[in-house]
């Protein structure tokens, strides 16, 4: 068997080893490749917060993700939250996924410490409640009842000045919704039950192709696509963070997959030619 034929069947364990190296080495020694901003996905998202939101707006953020997708969604949320706080807007966080509630609190608390945002005045983390879609829909008419009157840590919502502005998720109280979505329940909750609100999405990259029709139909107005979206947003707000650092690892891993596909095809073609010869 020639070396070219061997490429037709590379042992999966070698592939796993190369992939591990492709992901680890660039994190240890970043390359810093240049990156453009997507004009159809990321730019409208940034423009909305930067230019279109009226001053002192209240935005709902929804953490519909878990630990697995936190690598993509955490940096997106951190960048958006930082931008919103710097522009003087207010944020109330809810979570359609139970793990998302605590993860998102960790993310925004860390950013809040850096930008000097105050819990209860600038942002509140209301958290997750069991109940699925009926629970989410009930927030449309009575946010406090839906949240059983307390935030994620059990503190009464009445103690937070910000919550006096939010009695229900209605257009006169909420300027827009941002959801960080890794699956279901997720975006469809808002396209079905909250169609009056400007909806922006932080998506795990694998979901982006499936959600393009929503963007085309303007049911979603802007989208961050995985870690790349977060890195682009960090670039726009001029504060490179974790997403920017990890982009090189993504580049090298993608290149490795392309090289493997090319090698596999060389092996496949050589083998087929020898068979037919």
């Amino acid at each position: 068997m020639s070396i070219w034929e061997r490429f037709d069947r590379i042992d999966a364990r070698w592939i796993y080893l190369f992939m591990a190296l492709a992901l680890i080495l660039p994190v240890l020694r970043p390359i810093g490749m240049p990156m453009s901003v997507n004009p159809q996905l990321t730019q409208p998202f940034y423009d909305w917060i930067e230019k279109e939101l009226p001053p002192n707006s209240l935005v709902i953020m929804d953490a519909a993700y878990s630990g697995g997708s936190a690598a993509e969604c955490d940096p997106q949320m951190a960048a958006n939250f930082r931008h919103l706080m710097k522009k003087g807007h207010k944020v109330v966080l809810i979570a359609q996924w139970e793990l998302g509630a605590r993860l998102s609190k960790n993310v925004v608390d860390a950013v809040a410490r850096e930008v000097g945002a105050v819990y209860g005045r600038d942002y509140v983390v209301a958290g997750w409640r069991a109940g699925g879609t009926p629970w989410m829909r009930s927030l449309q008419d009575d946010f406090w009842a839906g949240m059983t009157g307390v935030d994620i840590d059990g503190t009464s919502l009445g103690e937070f000045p910000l919550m006096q502005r939010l009695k229900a998720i209605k257009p006169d109280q909420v300027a827009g919704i941002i959801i960080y979505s890794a699956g279901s329940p997720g975006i469809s909750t808002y396209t079905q039950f909250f169609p009056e609100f400007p909806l922006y999405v932080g998506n795990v990259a694998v979901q982006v192709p499936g959600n393009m029709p929503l963007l085309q139909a303007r049911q979603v107005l802007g989208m961050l696509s995985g870690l790349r979206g977060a890195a682009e947003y960090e670039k726009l707000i001029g504060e490179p963070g974790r997403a920017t650092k990890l982009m090189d690892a993504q580049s090298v891993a993608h290149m490795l997959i392309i090289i493997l596909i090319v090698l596999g095809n060389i092996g496949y073609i050589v083998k087929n030619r020898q068979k037919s010869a």
Partner: protein
Amino acid sequence: MRREVPIFIATVVALYAFVWQVSHHAWNTGWLTQTDLWRTFMVQVAVFLGAINLTRLHANNIRRRREHWIFSVICIVVLWSYMALGMLGNGLFTSGGNNLPTYRWIHDAMLVPIDSAIFSLLAFFIASAAYRAFRVRTREATAMLVVAVIIMLSNVPVGEVIWSKFPTLGQWILKFPNAAGMRGIQIGVFLGTFAATLRLFLGLERKYLGA
């Protein structure tokens, strides 16, 4: 009666779900909120019911010494101890137990990393699956291969370094051919789901009875 009663209950619940789903487009949704809060409450009770059911299931495993019964012991211990810590850690009938340092440590240092670790297996599996699947076997397979490579390169900075037009090309593929295909699938799925729901309404679907 063994069949009629479950079919009747299923039909009534399905009708309620249908009316509920359509009614959120009604102008005044105040009445829905009452049923929603009840449903939310019921789901919260169901979480507890689930915990009891799970315990029963694993207790059976332990009692009958089924294969891997030791994991059932671990499952029951973890389930109830974590729940007890969250509910009682701050004192009986007081809230805020989920903010205790130990509770949060288990969440942040165990639950989330384990979740992430299994998810990260995807990076390895996608490499081996792509290597195996993307072969120039047929014209269609070749088209899929070429599009996959363009999309991969358009999503990472290295693609721009190779050719500055990769992001634009990738975006065009996502926005037009991909969106058209996705729409086709989604419309089909909606209609398929709807037909399945109608079969349930009309009592034609009885698999849940073991039929």
